[in-house]
């Protein structure tokens, strides 16, 4: 037995535990449940609810299991009459003030207090005086408050302090007047803030959009994956008779731990938006009319067939891997290489240096273990809140985390350096010069005459001195007019400082779409196409007989595509939503399901394949995208299109890719890269957090947040 282990007994069972562990960790590990409210494994210990009192031999009082470290020879009794009496006594106190409004409380049926009251509460209270009443707060459009129900566990307060990094909620007053509130009247705005809904053990903080719309016991919990960022947070959809009522986190320590972003939690509202396209529609003589699937698909097949190698396909980077793969197969069958998912990219000059897939360069969980990080061209809190959280954890551990970004952004930790003054390209060149890249032929031209500022030198030093470090390129870098130069510089810095090079890529599935061959220059698996197709910007602005838009709306998703100047004879869109821009630019609209209405696979930024089943009944006549594409393939007489289910699509691609993991990083080197033209015009480069895709743009509650309002006004 090692020195840092102790032997103890839990309810008579011998147990070994690590020295310094709290009793509750040990009892949890051996399955001896101790009731608790304030304790949460992701938060600091508060020891204030006093529900987890257990009996410890020789202790003069019952001890809180959450705050008592184990010791050698300790004998713990979690269910002894003495322990139970102490737990019941606390419960009796809590129930004095807690309202008995479970029938009208959304938390009813999934309430920690209600559950424990069944085990530890009395049927009738011995206290008959008035209950404490607290005025409710309006803390924004996402979280509802019923503060009379609050039991002061302070999980929400600690979440703000410790996880979000900003104490949006706190306690004011003392004694029985203690209240949880924002210190001044304001909304809670952190991108992870709604996790307090899950943390709240009672119905004090609840899901505002979900309010009064279902009961916990009538909904089904179905696992799926969040569709907005490259993390692929694991989520559960709570579904009532085929309708998604809310989204909650599905714990996965390797990916999102127990958290999800507010974007992932509330975007489901858009599934039931009035903008949903409920039936195929076709434009004839300038008039839109409903049509049926059969004729709609027939029309699309005819137009694509006729377009052949000149057909263009643009798909959302949040399309499933199956959808991307089938689109790539259809393009291949048509003989057209004009397919792309990199919709917001402007500079394709070094696309041959793209990796097989824009991977993070390390596992998500490893991000919090780095000693140095340099995030280039990313407002990472908005692009991938979970990755920002991991970086914050790294910084709190002592990692030096720096940023180069034209956009100002506040991080709730000590940022090592924030380079923004001189423009992205100049700042990056400075860091590269400081890192000693001047002799690297690929950046030699870019570094001519560059001398590093003190701040740039500190960034370079933070990477080269770190045990493990990473340089991350974000969406702003990808969208930048000088993306090629930026990436080459970043790669050079990473190389010179022995750092990993990674990408915080667009959408939920840039990795999957790349692997599936939804690219004009590469096939599935990464082989170069014989004839290179047009890249996204060229497709969007180009001319041709037919264009298929998949899950992408002209304008916000395809900025280069101008409805009024479309160069295509025929435009079709497979889309969950209608929009004015779509109706102005398309001839055919095919309703496909959102992430909740289809099965599929997202490959996240660490290359993790996460497959999910459809969780909700499709709205109207919407059909899962892969099914639409399968039928389209059949109508086009494409070979090998007889898939029974999406798993077959996935498995075919997966078999094609083989077992070698894809390469990330940078595939170039040696060849000098020129700086592209164009400035850091942040307004064009930064896509506001709640504008990234059609779902979030139509998520009502999210759109009422200050973040969304700022985003709309800024656009």
């Amino acid at each position, binding site marked *: 037995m090692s020195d840092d282990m102790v032997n103890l007994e839990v309810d008579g069972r011998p147990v070994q535990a690590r020295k310094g562990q709290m009793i509750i960790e040990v009892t949890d590990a051996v399955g001896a449940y101790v009731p608790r409210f304030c304790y949460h494994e992701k938060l600091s210990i508060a020891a204030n609810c006093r529900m987890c*009192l257990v009996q410890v031999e020789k202790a003069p009082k019952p001890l809180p299991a959450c705050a008592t470290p184990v010791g050698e020879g300790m004998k713990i009794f979690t269910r002894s009459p003495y322990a139970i009496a102490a737990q019941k*006594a606390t419960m009796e106190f809590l129930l004095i003030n807690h309202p008995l409004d479970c029938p009208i409380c959304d938390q009813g049926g999934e309430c920690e207090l209600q559950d424990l009251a069944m085990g530890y509460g009395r049927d009738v209270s011995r206290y008959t005086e008035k209950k404490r009443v607290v005025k409710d707060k309006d803390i924004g459009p996402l979280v509802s408050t019923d503060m009379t129900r609050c039991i002061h566990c302070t999980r929400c307060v600690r979440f703000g302090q410790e996880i979000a990094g900003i104490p949006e909620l706190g306690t004011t007053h003392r*004694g029985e007047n203690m209240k949880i509130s924002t210190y001044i009247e304001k909304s809670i705005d952190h991108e992870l803030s709604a996790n307090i809904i899950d943390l709240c053990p009672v119905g004090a903080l609840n899901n505002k959009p979900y309010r009064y719309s279902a009961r916990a016991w009538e909904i089904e919990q179905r696992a799926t994956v969040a569709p907005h960022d490259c993390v692929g947070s694991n989520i559960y959809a709570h579904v009532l008779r085929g309708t998604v009522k809310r989204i909650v986190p599905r714990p996965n320590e390797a990916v999102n731990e127990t958290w999800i972003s507010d974007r992932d939690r509330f975007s489901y509202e858009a599934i039931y938006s009035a903008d949903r396209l409920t039936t195929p529609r076709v434009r004839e003589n300038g008039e839109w009319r409903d049509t049926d699937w059969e004729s709609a698909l027939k029309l699309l097949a005819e137009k694509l067939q006729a377009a052949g190698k000149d057909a263009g396909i643009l798909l959302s980077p949040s399309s499933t891997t199956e959808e991307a793969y089938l689109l790539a197969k259809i393009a291949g069958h048509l003989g057209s290489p004009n397919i792309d998912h990199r919709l917001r990219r402007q500079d394709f000059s070094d696309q041959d240096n793209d990796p097989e897939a824009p991977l993070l360069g390390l596992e998500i969980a490893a991000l919090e273990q780095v000693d140095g990080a340099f995030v280039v061209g990313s407002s990472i809190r908005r692009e991938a809140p979970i990755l920002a959280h991991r970086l914050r954890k790294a910084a709190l551990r002592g990692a030096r985390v720096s940023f180069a970004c034209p956009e100002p952004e506040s991080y709730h930790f000590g940022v090592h350096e924030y380079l923004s003054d001189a423009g992205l390209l100049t700042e990056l060149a400075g860091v590269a010069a400081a890192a000693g890249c001047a002799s690297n032929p690929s950046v030699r031209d870019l570094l001519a005459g560059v001398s590093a500022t003190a701040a740039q030198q500190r960034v370079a030093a933070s990477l080269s001195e770190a045990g493990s470090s990473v340089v991350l390129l974000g969406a702003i870098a990808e969208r930048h007019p000088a993306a090629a130069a930026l990436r080459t510089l970043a790669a050079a810095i990473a190389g010179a400082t022995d750092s990993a090079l990674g990408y915080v890529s667009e959408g939920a599935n840039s990795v999957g779409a790349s692997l599936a061959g939804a690219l004009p220059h590469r096939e599935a698996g990464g082989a170069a196409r014989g004839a290179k197709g047009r890249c996204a910007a060229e497709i969007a602005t180009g001319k041709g007989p037919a264009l298929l838009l998949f899950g992408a709306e002209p304008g916000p998703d395809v900025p280069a595509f101008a409805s009024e100047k479309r160069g295509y004879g025929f435009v079709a869109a497979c889309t969950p939503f209608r929009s004015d821009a779509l109706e102005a630019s398309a001839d055919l609209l095919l309703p496909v399901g959102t992430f909740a209405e289809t099965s599929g696979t997202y490959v996240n930024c660490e290359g993790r394949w996460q497959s999910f089943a459809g969780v909700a009944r499709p709205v109207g006549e919407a059909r899962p995208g892969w099914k639409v594409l399968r039928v389209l393939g059949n109508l086009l007489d494409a070979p090998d299109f007889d898939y029974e289910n999406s798993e077959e699509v996935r498995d075919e691609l997966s078999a094609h890719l083989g077992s070698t993991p894809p390469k990330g990083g940078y595939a170039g080197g040696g060849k000098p890269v020129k700086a592209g033209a164009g400035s850091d015009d942040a307004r064009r480069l930064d896509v506001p957090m709640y504008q990234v895709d059609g779902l979030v743009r139509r998520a009502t509650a999210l759109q009422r947040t200050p973040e969304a309002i700022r985003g709309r006004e800024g656009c």
Partner: protein
Amino acid sequence: MSRSVRVFVPRETAAVSLGADEVAVALESAAQRNHGMAVELVRNGSRGLSWLEPLVEVETGGTRTAYGPVAPEDVDGLVAAGLFEGGTHALSLGPAEKIPYLATQQRWTFRRVGIDDPLSMDAYRAAGGFEGIGRAFELGPSAVLEHVIESGLRGRGGAGFPAGIKWRTVAAATADRKYIACNADEGDSGTFSDRILMEGDPYTLIEGMLIAGYTVGAHKGYIYLRSEYPLARRILGQAIANAREHGWLGTNVRDSGFDFDIELHLGAGSYVCGEETAMLESLEGKAGLIRYKPPLPALEGLFGKPTVVNNVVTLASVPDIVRLGGAAYAALGSGRSKGTLAFQLAGNVKRGGLVEIPFGATLRSLIEDWGGGTASGRPVRAVQVGGPLGAYLPDSLLDTPLDYEAFAAAGGMIGHGGIVVFDDTVDMAAQARFAMEFCSVESCGKCTPCRIGSVRGVEVIDRILGNQDRAANLELLDELCETMVQGSLCAMGGLTPYPVKSALKHFPGDFEPRSGGKR
């Protein structure tokens, strides 16, 4: 100017509230009218004889003659009776040191208090001041630590934890910074020893903190002073400034190579901030909420760094422990309660004030021999020791020796040494109710038992007094108290039931139904 007379009028809160400032003004103008008389008015601290305040002393020919209590209107008569020559008057008390109340005490920590101008650096040094820290610099930290351990000095804030052990933990901890945090949030009712010391001999506290810092390797000290002590704040603030000016604080203290400075921090009127972890939170600028332990403040205290948290009297006892050796202190006291304690007599007592004696005397002796019985002259019915959360003791327990262990065995706690006396007109049910009410007002609100139990405790007592379902409610009160004792996060909720339960135990009749009028 042939002769110079020194006249002492305390500048101490109790004396000032009883008119000491007006007395001082009257004396000065009387001296001015008295041509040829050079009177040096000294504003000393209080000797702790609060029942005699304002206690005026006149030093003539090496003797300090005391008069008191002096009202401003007494001054003319006193001067006429030859006050400046030590003349006799109805208010004459004879030589100050011979007043039995004082003469029978054994002063250690308070030996300088009340004797001279508390801000006079010369007076302090003349009375052995800064010899403790000087000796500490000679001995080195580990030898100083041994003296503190050997002295058996225990925390005077109430918990009675051995100071040396705490210091040793902090000294052994490895950290880039360590702190000394002096708890001067003297919030217990009936206590005033911290205040009398800070107002009467502030350099002792500064010296004690210096020694503590030197011993454990801390370079910064904080005094957390309650805002209700404005005079102490002025005196302490000036004392710190003087000490800094004379090189006793700051970098390289008196060329010792040791850096130490003190910051005076004012509380905001919260009782619970006298609990050490809430005090640390408050010092950090946060709301005064209790922190759970572990980690002990000695390991992770102020700003997460190893911190000595000691009461004013604890720290102020240290300079002489180092100066005279730990054994000298340990020779006083009884059992495991070594040294002296400055008891504070208050409430319905004839001679209220501060009595520093070795541990071991009985409560009765304090109340009768020093206190002179009740102020009302009626029999003593109950005594509360150790602040508002201390148990109420009936007459039958007054012979309990005042040491930590013996007192605890009798169901009481010595705490900070405050003794509040009640005569036979006291309504103990009202006192029990007050304990709960006090807790409901002062609870930080963090933990369930204290936050909810205190509010509901008041209600249950009201039901009992209202003769509502008495038996069931008495049982409920008992269980409520048990929940608070067993489950509370800190001593606030854990101790509140003690006055309640002791009142119920010793004075059950007061909880009987009332038929109008008094009990």
